[in-house]
């Protein structure tokens, strides 16, 4: 019991540290002054802290300093105290500058409040259920024990990061390299398990997976915050958080923790949302957050580099609203042409063998997205949103986010149509996990686009191009 408390303390510390970092880098902006950013700050705080603790662990390893609770936790404690002082000093000025807040729970009708409380209880039931699965189930899914936690086990036991290599290199190294099924996979997720184990004081391959549950909880909070800032009422934002946290495949990745796909999805969604926020507000804080989360994407899974690159079209559209679409179109054409040329030589890119043989497995894709139980009604909703919100999603306020979502979907289409990854579509293996990377973002995009479209119709009877900030003030 004591060691479980140490584990909880370890991750609470990471969360508090990350939240203070996010709070400290936030500068005064329109949205922040409206007092709606607490959920966004706290939600993002976990992800910022969870990434930075792994950066610190990498630094310790590089310096040859073995892992210990004190060596990892103490700098976070000191930094947290300093950040808390900094944030507190700035707080009065922020309070004074606050503009009238967007509607809060008190403004809801009795029925609305009741529905909100029911949803919160429903969310609590889900998260308690998932927590029980996480803390009871020893590491279960295949890749988790063949290529992810393998590294964690070695690094925790040796107290430092040691290199892993493929078979030939492993034989040549004569004991200086370790081996597993994917020695080149990034270190962030295994380092979370190492930190859990260090905090716990022992190797426990159930309890070490606590961060997967925290990812789900923190993502739900961050999504609530993002939706509130996009103009949704507390009830609307809670519904959004419920929808996002109800995606069955995401739940499975918590209950059977150990894969990097859910963290990938969370960091990607937050990077895209922070970039979108930057496109609307142009604050340094949003830019820093977007960069931080995009950097984290590249350290979670190998395709994280490509996911981070899919943020670029949105950034280009934000910087150059007029010429941006043309530049993005040219960039995409060049990228696709490069892929086509590369495909002639049958190269392997990020582990995927490219070849110009367009043969997507449509039926399996339809099964995965629309018929099986992976996503509830998500992809029906995405299509509906794209149809009804066609004008909204192309408006200057939404174009950057829409471009990111479109680029992400294009990446999946290319991967599953032109590479050997298509083989994993037909047997329903990697397809769903790859789609999971973009699922939370696609859901948030659907909600904000439909909300803005509907709001525009109700308010003005116009053709529905609404700025999220305008929607917020009207709500």
């Amino acid at each position, binding site marked *: 019991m004591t060691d479980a408390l140490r584990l909880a303390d370890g991750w609470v510390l990471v969360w508090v540290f990350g939240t203070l970092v996010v709070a400290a880098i936030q500068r005064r902006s329109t949205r922040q002054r409206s007092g709606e950013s607490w959920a966004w700050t706290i939600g993002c705080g976990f992800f910022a802290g969870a990434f930075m603790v792994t950066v610190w662990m990498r630094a310790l390893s590089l310096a040859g300093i073995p892992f210990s609770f004190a060596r990892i936790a103490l700098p976070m404690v000191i930094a947290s105290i300093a950040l808390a002082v900094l944030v507190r000093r700035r707080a009065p000025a922020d309070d004074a500058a606050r503009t009238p807040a967007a509607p809060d729970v008190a403004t809801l009708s009795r029925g609305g409040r009741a529905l909100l409380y029911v949803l919160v209880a429903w969310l609590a039931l889900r998260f308690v259920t998932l927590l029980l699965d996480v803390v009871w189930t020893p590491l279960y899914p295949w890749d988790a024990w063949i290529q992810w936690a393998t590294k964690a086990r*070695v690094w925790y036991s040796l107290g430092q990061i040691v290199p892993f290599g493929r078979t030939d290199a492993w034989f040549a190294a004569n*004991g200086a390299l370790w081996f597993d099924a994917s020695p080149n996979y990034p270190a962030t997720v295994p380092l979370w398990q190492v930190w859990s184990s260090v905090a716990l004081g022992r190797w426990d391959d159930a309890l070490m997976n606590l961060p997967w549950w925290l990812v789900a909880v923190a993502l739900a909070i961050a999504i609530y915050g993002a939706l509130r800032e996009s103009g949704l009422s507390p009830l609307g934002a809670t519904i959004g958080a419920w929808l996002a946290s109800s995606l069955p495949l995401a739940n499975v*990745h918590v209950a059977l923790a150990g894969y990097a796909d859910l963290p990938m999805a969370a960091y990607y969604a937050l990077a895209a949302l922070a970039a979108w926020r930057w496109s609307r507000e142009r604050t340094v804080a949003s830019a820093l957050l977007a960069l931080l989360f995009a950097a984290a994407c590249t350290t979670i899974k190998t395709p994280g580099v490509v996911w981070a690159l899919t943020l670029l079209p949105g950034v280009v559209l934000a910087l150059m609203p007029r010429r941006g679409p043309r530049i993005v179109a040219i960039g995409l054409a060049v990228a696709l042409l490069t892929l086509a040329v590369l495909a002639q030589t049958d190269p392997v890119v990020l582990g995927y063998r490219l070849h110009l043989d367009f043969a997507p497995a449509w039926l399996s894709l339809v099964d995965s997205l629309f018929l*099986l139980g*992976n996503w509830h009604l998500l992809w029906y909703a995405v299509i509906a949103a794209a149809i009804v919100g066609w004008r909204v999603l192309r408006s200057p306020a939404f174009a950057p986010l829409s471009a990111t979502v479109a680029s992400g979907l294009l990446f999946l289409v290319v991967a599953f149509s032109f590479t050997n990854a298509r083989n994993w579509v037909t047997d*329903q293996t990697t397809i769903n996990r790859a789609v999971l990377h973009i699922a939370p973002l696609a859901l948030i995009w659907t909600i904000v686009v439909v909300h803005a479209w509907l709001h525009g119709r109700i308010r003005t009877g116009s053709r529905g191009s609404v700025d999220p900030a305008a929607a917020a003030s009207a709500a």
Partner: protein
Amino acid sequence: MPRTIAIVSIAAVLACLAVYLALAVPGRWMPSAHERSFGAAQLTMPRGVAAMTGNELIVTRAAEDGNTVISVTTDLRAVDYPVIAWIAAGFPADAHVALLWQTDVEPARVNKRALEVEAGQLLPADLHRDPHWLGRIVGLALVVQGPVEAPLRVRGVIAKPAGALDTLRDRAREWLAPEPWTGASINTVAGGSDVQRLPLPLLLACAIALIALIAWLLLRARGRDWIPGVASAAIAVALVAWFVLDARWTVSLVREAHATASRYAGKSADEKHLAGEDRDLFAFIEKARAQLPREPARVFVVADADFFRGRAAYHLYPHNVWFDPYRNAVPPANRLHAGDWLVVYQRRGVQYDAGRRSLRWEGDVTVPVELKLLDHGGALFVVR
């Protein structure tokens, strides 16, 4: 307005179900006959080898002619039972499986219908248009052509009147079927049983589209700005539909948490592994670890099954383990050094010669070793 939406929603769902039933029910909607089940105990096995385990017939081998036949004597009116469903699992996707039957009208004739395999299970056969499905059905059989690579589990056969209520009950059973955690769960959530002839998300999406259409027609007829009304109705119904799906899923999650609790709750980390699927392997590796040095040593793992190679390696870390994750391979003998360790677990083709204190495997490779542990299908050696 909410009342209208609720009424329209119910009507739309019923309309979608009616359309489905019109397409799916092969015979009469309200038949007088009741479902007839024949359990595994009533089955006979003219060809092949099988054993009863619980309420399942586990088929392990085909007959010498390469066929497996499971049969049952019946007395059914063909017209009352247009659908035959074998409750069986474990079939590879390319398996050649067929339903055989005999009737009292053509007693000398054995009729045959190929059966489709989906997710390892046999899809029901709809025979109501088959010209030889007539009179009384006096015998049914399941034939599998080709060797049996992995055990087939047969629980019985059901003759179905396949009326509207039966069809709806079957669909509901598919939607609400438990979905226990398996190795495939991390990749796919079926949303009920592995085989579903009417996926619930599709039904709900069709109903939402129909509701939007009805709302549009109603509001347009009243001459109002129809978009906010239609959108609000569609969104409200979509959220309810999402909640229906989520409720089904949450029940499944709670059920799985309960199963996890009964297996692992209150146990230490080691006790959990001893309650897990690889408990025998874990127990063996624990003994092997006691033999290994404290400092990380080079350990090679060989086993026939991918699962055992990977799991053995996982339990052996932080030792410096090598295994082939994808192929049933042995390490190159010329790269083994004195002091290296070798774990052999349920691996055919690796032989230990106690007299010569050596291991021999494919390619007539011989490695001098010392046996350190022999236990329940596993052995630990150190290279001399």
